[in-house]
């Protein structure tokens, strides 16, 4: 069972209080973008065994979207952070580096 800390409510929410929202930090491609970029945006996703960044919604709680950094292999949660950001905060990256040195994910490392 996955338990994630909601950065807005400050509570630890059980998986059944949450709704999974897929990969985090997607860059939206719209009118004017190339077909390849639009296809990437629509369909191409990271599918790592290990460090992953996801969007989650505290659907039975405050209703807000937030981000989570976790390991898909061990279910270790590195941390959660508000959705109003374009990249993972440094303290979360540092925490991942502590146990997964040399990790990379998309454009982040």
């Amino acid at each position, binding site marked *: 069972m996955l338990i994630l800390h909601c950065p*807005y*409510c*400050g*509570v*630890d*929410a*059980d998986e*059944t*209080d949450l709704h999974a929202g897929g990969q985090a930090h997607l860059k939206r491609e719209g009118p004017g973008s190339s077909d390849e970029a639009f296809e990437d945006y629509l369909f191409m996703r990271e599918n790592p065994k290990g460090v992953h960044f996801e969007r989650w919604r505290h659907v*039975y*709680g*405050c*209703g*807000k979207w937030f981000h989570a950094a976790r390991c898909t292999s061990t279910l270790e949660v590195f941390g959660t952070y508000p959705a109003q950001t374009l990249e993972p905060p440094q303290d979360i990256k540092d925490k991942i580096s502590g146990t997964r040195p040399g990790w990379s994910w998309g454009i982040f490392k």
Partner: protein
Amino acid sequence: MSNAVSALNGKVAPGEVTIREAGLRGMITLRGDLSDSKLKSVCTGLSGVDLPMPGHANCVGEKGLCWMSPDEMLVLVPYAEVDAALELIAKNLKKKHHLAENVSDARALIFVEGEYSRDMIAKLAPVDLHPDVFQPGSFRRTHLGQVAAAFWMRDVDTFEVICFRSVADYAFNLLETSAKAGAVGHFNAR
């Protein structure tokens, strides 16, 4: 004028832990900037209590404030006072971006009363209800069994549960079944 009736019309299931539908209660969903001084003062003025911290509810009698999210407060008032309260909110927040809606008839309020009320809630919600963590004044939005619900502790023996009116019957039966099954004893009552 229609005769307003609450979801379960005050149904009671007495027992070691008693489940009691509270009857009609005025509830206003108020969304806006919770740090705004005008919003704060209209909330405290209507309810007579201080603005609660995140994860808390301040309730006295039929009035109170519940922290719903970083931009949402639930204002509780007596059922008959909702229209006047909405007018006051509209007047005071005229120039502020906000939303206030009467949700009284969309909700049901259920009391869980008795020494082991904590056990009854703990059996049904994925929430840490340890006495060191969840205390009088604590508030949580989550789910009870299969339905969305919010609850807060009024005092050491009493929880107040809010759910949608359409699932009031389910929530009541769920709590009643939990109460009939008895205490778990995990929290080693006082």
